[in-house]
């Protein structure tokens, strides 16, 4: 709380200072013009004031406009989001909020980006090459400043400027059913890959439950595995830094190789569902709650959903991804970054919404099952428990300045799709014998594609 006050004070001082210097004669001095949308285009270039806080000097009454907020939550846009809208409009009586919910955010925003008509508030699409972000989005402030207040903002920062704030930070682990483990005779939580496979085998031998449910048919849950690669690597430096030095990052011994080896082994040993092609995500939550599934690899956001899917919520918990590394790591990954369009006519209202959404809405904990990006918001209990048990929650080290966005670029060019499900499906198909490929064949396929893209881009 007091942090915010200090910030406010600082910015007020800043304004006074600047006004006194007269170095900036048409931006912040303008704030009394009742239409807070004019003359606000270039103040970010020569002012040290954080752009996204300009509106805080205005009276809530003075902030006005019809705000279009784009969200990916088709499921709660007519319920939870309506409460947000009511709360926000009560604070800013002259703002009207309208939502547009996109089921496939990445796919639907792309054609719109090029038309300058993509809402006032939206997310930074992961498909936008990082260096092109400034062409479409409004800057929030310099990274040094923003880093003190928010987690995970460095990931998509460009040239030291931040363009979005993560709506939540979540971590990936193995969600498991305690009762099933007990029935199977798993005494201690498995911490290494070997122990994990042994535990699953016990589940298979001693219970009717499915040891590990992949959700292959819905496919996107397979991409969740990628969030735990850092646990396998045992270092927060691997993902955005070390991997960039290796043109073939899928060789035996490399974190990705060891990580997906587990996926392959689980499938090969028949420790997954009988017919992967007819899985159903919605049913899987109920099945897990009822003790028909022992484990699923998912983000922390799913924990609450599975606990609520039936009467046995107390049996469901999350553990760290089994890893042979020394440290037990949960890597905090940024969810989507909320952003403001460069072409918005209501930037004050838009930034006010961003501020409300991050600090006051409670979205990150209640709806995303993670933690808030704001350093002021206390962490949920689940994390404290895990930390006591010796787990570390770490933020990934960002890529060095000269290699920003490189990982993304190689990933797209090679079509390996680290965060996509296609290649993981192929891996499972190979493991269950539907494809004539060994694990090493799949890894080499990734390696070859990666290397070719790497050499093309890193020249």
């Amino acid at each position, binding site marked *: 709380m007091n942090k915010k006050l200090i910030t406010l004070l600082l910015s007020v001082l800043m304004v006074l200072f600047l006004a006194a210097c007269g170095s900036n004669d048409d931006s912040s001095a303008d704030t009394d013009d009742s239409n807070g949308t004019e003359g606000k285009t270039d103040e970010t270039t020569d002012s040290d004031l954080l752009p996204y806080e300009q509106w805080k000097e205005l009276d809530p009454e003075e902030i006005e406009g019809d705000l279009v907020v784009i969200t990916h939550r088709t499921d709660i846009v007519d319920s939870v989001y309506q409460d947000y809208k009511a709360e926000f409009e009560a604070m800013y009586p002259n703002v009207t909020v309208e939502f547009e919910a996109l089921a496939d955010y*990445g*796919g639907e925003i*792309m*054609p719109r*980006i*090029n038309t300058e008509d993509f809402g006032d508030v939206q997310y930074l699409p992961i*498909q*936008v*090459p990082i260096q*092109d972000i400034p*062409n*479409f989005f409004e800057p929030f402030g310099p990274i040094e400043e923003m880093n003190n207040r928010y987690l995970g903002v460095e990931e998509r920062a460009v040239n030291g400027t931040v363009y979005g704030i993560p709506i939540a930070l979540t971590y990936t682990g193995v969600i498991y059913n305690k009762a099933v483990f007990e029935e199977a005779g798993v005494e201690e939580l498995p911490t290494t890959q070997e122990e994990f496979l042994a535990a699953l085998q016990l589940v298979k031998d001693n219970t009717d439950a499915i040891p590990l449910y992949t959700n*292959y*048919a819905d*496919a996107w849950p397979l991409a969740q595995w990628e969030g735990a690669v850092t646990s396998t690597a045992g270092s927060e430096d691997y993902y955005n830094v070390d991997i960039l030095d290796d043109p073939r990052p899928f060789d035996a011994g490399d974190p990705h190789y060891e990580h997906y080896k587990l996926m392959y082994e689980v499938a090969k040993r028949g420790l997954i569902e*009988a*017919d*992967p*092609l*007819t899985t*159903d995500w919605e049913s899987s939550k109920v099945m897990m709650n009822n003790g028909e599934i022992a484990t699923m690899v998912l983000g922390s956001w799913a924990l609450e959903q599975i606990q609520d899917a039936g009467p046995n919520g107390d049996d469901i918990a999350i553990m760290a991804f089994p890893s042979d590394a020394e440290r037990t790591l949960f890597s905090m990954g940024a969810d989507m970054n909320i952003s403001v369009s460069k072409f918005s006519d209501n930037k004050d209202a838009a930034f006010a919404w961003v501020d409300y959404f991050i600090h006051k809405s409670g979205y990150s904990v209640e709806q995303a099952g993670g933690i808030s990006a704001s350093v002021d918001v206390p962490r949920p209990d689940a994390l404290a428990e895990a930390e006591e048990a010796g787990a570390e929650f770490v933020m990934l080290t960002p890529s060095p300045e000269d290699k920003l966005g490189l990982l993304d670029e190689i990933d*797209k*060019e090679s*079509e390996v*799709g680290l965060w*996509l*499900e*296609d290649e993981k*499906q192929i891996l499972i*198909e190979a493991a269950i014998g*539907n*494809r004539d490929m060994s694990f090493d064949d799949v890894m080499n396929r990734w390696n070859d594609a990666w290397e070719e893209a790497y050499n093309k881009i890193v020249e």
Partner: protein
Amino acid sequence: MFGLSRLSYETQKKIIIVSFLVVPLGLLALFAYLPVLNMIWYSFTDWNGYSAKEFLGFENYKTIFTDPEYFRVFKVSLYYFFATFIQLAIALYFATILSFKVKFKNFFKGVLFFPYLLNGVAIGFMFLFFFRPDGTLDTVLTAIGLEGLITQWLGNPNVINYSLAGVSVWRYMGFNFIIFLGAISSISGEIYEAAEMDGANRWQQFRYIIFPSIRIIISLNLILAISGALSAFEIPYIMTGGANGSATFVIQTVNTAFKYGKIGLGSAMAVLLLIIVVIVSSIQKKFFGEGE
């Protein structure tokens, strides 16, 4: 009307031709051909959908032709291609039967057309239910004592495309059926009566009356069905997302363009698909004639 009748028919004809065609052709140019031209332009660039475009010449086409992976998926189209003929045959058969005297005619027409009324997402979900182990299909097969046939309808890589093509037939058969029905009903009843007098049986009536009169429609249905088979997308996309060897060329194109941000390469693939579809359709037209 507008004093048109005072003009000579020759002048009227010109006015009608121009005024009746200007809007349809305008729409056609704007929403079909302009996007295609755009797409062709993209196919010569490295555009990712966001950044500035760079002209590459035939680079994208080279990429496609030097990698057989891109063409392997056309094998999957063959399943849909053969399913198409089965679909048209079934549709024509039912349309013919139901053009004559049958009890509960309207009930049967309604039921056969019904699947076409459903939306694709609902269908995808229904058939996931249908093909699941111990799902609807297995339940039915067990009930009639054919449990020996049971396999993983989607999990078995040798069966998956038959299953999906089957869903496609189930979904679109009603569409062909209704079009055939409409066409057959436009044949004047007197012709049948005359034929009956001459003692023509049903098969002969079909062969010499129905078939020739609905040639145009059959030809159209064929072209649509074949191009549909080549660009099969919705059913496999909704049901399996192209997993387990069920990816079609369009799924691959969409993934390339939107998942991996290679609009340029994806456009080149789409251009190639369009060329292939046009070639196949013209061959089909040559063989089948235009009913002229």
